[in-house]
C-alpha cells in the first residue's frame, strides 16, 4: 500500500476516534477529499519542479505512534535554547510532553492545539482563525485532515510576551519510520509582541517525515518574530507550511536556519491584508552530503504602503541541492509597495546544485521592487589573502562563509539564538573559531 492509500484508510480510523464538533469535522472531511483528489505533489507541478518527494514517500511510516514515549530533559537539553528563560511547548512523537513543557494561561494562552480544538472556551478563536490562512493545497489539506496536536498561542491585545516561546518536536525513533503532522496556531492581537522558536529534532537515524502547518495571525500593530532552526538528522525530512496573515501596521519576521535534514521544503507565505505592513523573510542554508533544502516563498502585497524584505543565503557542498523560488505578487491596489528580494548562493563543490527563481507579478504601477540572485564560488583571492595572514584554509573558508551569511544573522533579535546559530555554523564547517564578527 502506498503512503497516500495508507493515509486515506488511516483517516477513517482516525475520524471515528475523534470527538469533534461539526465545524471541525466538516473541515477535516473537505481537507481529506482535497488530498485524495490532488495527492502528493509531483515534479510536474511548477512549484515542485526541482523537489521530488519520491525518495521520502516510499518509507513505511507509522501514522499514529503506538506507544507514549518519554525522554529526559538532560538528554535533549542541547536542542533547547536553554540559557534563557522561555515558555516551552514540547512534543514527543507527536504527543504532548507535559514533563518537558512550560505553558501558561496567565493572561494569555500558550498551550496545546488539542485543548483548543476540544474546549468550548476556545471555540470562537478556532472558528475565526483555524484554517483561515492555510491554502487548500494537498499537503496543507492533509495536515488539516489529521490535525490534532501542536502549539496553540493566543496573545490578547497590548501584551509584550516577556519570554520567547519554544516549540520543539522530538521523534524518538522507537518506530522504524514515523510521520508527524503538527499543527500550530498563533494569534497575536493588537499591539502585542511575541517571539517564537521552532525546532524539529529526531533523536535517532530512523526515518521521520514531518508535514507541519503553522498559521500565524498578526493583528493590528502586532509584532511577531519567528525563528525556525532546522538542523535535523540525515533521515529526517520536513515539509513546513507556514502562513502569515498580517493586518495593518503589523511587523512580522521569519528567519529560517536550514543546516540539516534529508529533505526540507519550506513553504512560507505572507499575506499583507492592511496598510503599512512590514514583512521580513530571511534564511541561511548550509548543507552538504545529499541534503536538499527548498525555500518556496510567497509575499502577497494586497494593500498599499507596505514593505517586504527577503534575504536568503545558501552555501552548498558535496552533492547537496538547494532551491529558492521567491514569488512576490503586488496587487493593483497595492501602490507604494516596497518589495526587496535577494538570494545569494555559494557552491563549494562541483557536484552541488542550486536552482533559484525569482517570480514577480506586479499589477500596480507605483512600486519599488528589486530582486537579485547570485551564484558563485568562494573568492580565491580572498582565500589567499587570509591564508597569507596565517589563517588556515579551512578556517579561512569558514570565515568567508560566515561573513557571507552574516547579513541574515544581524536581524536576529535574541542574542542567544545568534550565538547558537553561530555555533551550529562553526560545527557544520568543522572549525573552532569564534565568529563574533
Amino acid at each position, binding site marked *: 500500500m502506498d503512503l497516500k492509500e495508507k493515509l486515506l484508510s488511516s483517516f477513517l480510523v482516525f475520524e471515528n476516534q475523534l470527538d469533534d464538533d461539526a465545524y471541525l469535522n466538516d473541515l477535516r472531511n473537505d481537507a481529506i477529499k482535497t488530498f485524495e483528489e490532488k495527492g502528493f505533489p509531483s515534479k510536474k507541478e511548477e512549484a515542485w519542479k526541482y523537489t521530488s518527494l519520491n525518495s521520502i514517500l516510499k518509507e513505511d511510516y507509522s501514522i499514529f505512534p503506538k506507544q507514549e514515549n518519554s525522554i529526559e530533559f538532560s538528554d535533549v537539553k542541547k536542542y533547547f535554547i536553554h540559557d534563557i528563560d522561555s515558555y516551552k511547548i514540547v512534543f514527543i512523537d507527536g504527543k504532548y510532553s507535559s514533563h518537558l513543557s512550560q505553558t501558561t494561561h496567565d493572561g494569555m494562552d500558550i498551550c496545546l492545539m488539542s485543548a483548543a480544538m476540544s474546549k468550548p472556551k476556545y471555540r470562537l478563536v478556532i472558528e475565526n482563525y483555524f484554517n483561515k490562512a492555510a491554502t487548500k493545497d494537498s499537503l496543507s489539506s492533509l495536515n488539516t485532515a489529521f490535525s490534532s496536536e501542536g502549539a496553540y498561542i493566543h496573545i490578547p491585545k497590548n501584551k509584550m510576551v516577556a519570554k520567547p516561546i519554544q516549540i520543539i518536536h522530538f521523534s524518538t525513533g522507537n518506530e522504524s519510520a514515523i510521520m508527524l503532522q503538527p499543527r500550530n496556531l498563533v494569534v497575536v492581537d493588537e499591539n502585542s509582541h511575541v517571539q517564537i522558536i521552532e525546532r524539529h529534532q529526531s533523536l535517532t537515524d530512523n526515518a521521520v517525515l514531518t508535514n507541519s502547518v503553522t498559521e500565524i495571525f498578526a493583528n493590528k500593530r502586532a509584532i511577531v518574530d519567528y525563528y525556525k532552526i532546522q538542523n535535523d538528522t540525515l533521515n529526517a525530512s520536513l515539509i513546513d507550511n507556514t502562513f502569515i496573515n498580517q493586518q495593518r501596521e503589523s511587523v512580522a519576521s521569519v528567519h529560517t536556519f536550514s543546516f540539516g535534514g534529508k529533505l526540507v521544503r519550506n513553504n512560507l507565505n505572507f499575506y499583507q491584508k492592511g496598510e503599512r505592513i512590514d514583512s521580513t523573510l530571511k534564511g541561511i542554508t548550509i548543507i552538504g552530503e545529499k541534503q536538499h533544502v527548498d525555500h518556496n516563498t510567497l509575499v502577497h502585497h494586497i494593500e498599499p504602503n507596505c514593505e517586504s524584505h527577503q534575504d536568503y543565503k545558501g552555501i552548498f557542498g558535496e552533492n547537496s541541492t538547494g532551491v529558492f523560488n521567491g514569488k512576490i505578487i503586488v496587487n493593483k491596489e497595492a501602490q507604494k509597495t516596497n518589495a526587496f528580494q535577494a538570494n545569494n548562493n555559494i557552491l563549494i563543490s562541483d557536484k552541488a546544485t542550486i536552482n533559484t527563481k525569482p517570480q514577480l507579478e506586479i499589477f500596480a504601477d507605483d512600486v519599488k521592487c528589486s530582486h537579485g540572485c547570485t551564484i558563485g564560488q568562494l573568492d580565491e583571492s580572498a582565500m589567499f589573502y587570509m591564508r*597569507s595572514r596565517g589563517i588556515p584554509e579551512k578556517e*579561512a573558508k569558514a*570565515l568567508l562563509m560566515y*561573513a557571507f551569511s552574516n547579513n541574515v544573522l544581524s536581524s536576529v533579535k535574541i542574542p542567544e539564538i545568534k550565538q547558537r546559530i553561530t555555533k551550529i555554523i562553526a560545527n557544520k564547517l568543522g572549525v573552532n573559531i569564534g565568529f563574533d564578527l
Partner: protein
Amino acid sequence: MLKIENLHASVDDKSILKGINLEIKAGEVHAIMGPNGSGKSTLASVVAGKEEYEVTKGSIIFNGEDIEDLAAEERAHKGIFLSFQYPVEIPGVSVTNFMKTAINETRKAKGLEEMPAKDMLKLIREKSELLEIDRKFLSRSLNEGFSGGEKKRNEIFQMAMLEPQLAILDETDSGLDIDALRIVANGVNKLKSKDNAVLVITHYQRLLDYIVPDFVHVLYNGRIVKSGGKELAHELEEKGYDWIKEEVNA
C-alpha cells in the same frame, strides 16, 4: 634568513621568473625595482605561497628550511608577511576580528594559547596608534570601501600586529599621497630591528627616500640583472629603465 636560488616560476605554463638569486640577511632592507611586467609581484607571491604559481626549478630557503611545499598559512606562521599591492575586500569580517583570528591561528600553530582579550585590545590600540588609524576604522569590514591609502595603512597595521621576520612590501607606495606614504614608511621603520628584514618591491624610487634600502636589485624579464646600493635607485629614477634593458639585451 631568506635565500632564493635559481628560482624559476610559471603561471599557466607561462614562465615568469627565470632564475632569481637573492639572499636577505636579518637586519637588512632590500629593494627590488624594475619595469612593469618584469616579475616583481610574481616573486612576492611565490615567496608568500600563492598556489597559482608553480615553482619549476630552484629553491626558496627560509631560515634554513626549504619552504616550497608549505602552504601560505604555514609560511605566515614561520614569519613571512606580504603586504598586498591590491588588498582584498572581505565584506562581513571586521579588521579587528580578522586580526584576532590571524593572531590566534598563528599562536595555535605554534602550540600557544589564544591571546587573552585584554592583551589583544592593548596590542590593537598600540599598533593602530603607530599607523595613526582611527579606532572606528577597526570595526569596519576589512578593506571594504577603504581608500587606496587606508588599504595600504591597514596592510602595515596588520604587519605591525603580526610582527613578521620577513616583510615583503609589494608596491606599498602605489596609490598613496605624501602624508600616507610618510605614515606607512614611519610604521615600517619603527618595526625594523636587527632580527627582521624587509623586502620592498617598488616601481618608483620615492618610497626608498623613507625606507632606506641597504641593497637595490633590478628585476628585468624574470631575472635580477643588476644589484647595488641605494644610489642605484636614484640612478634608475633619473635615467629610467631603458639603459638597463639595453645593457641586458646587448
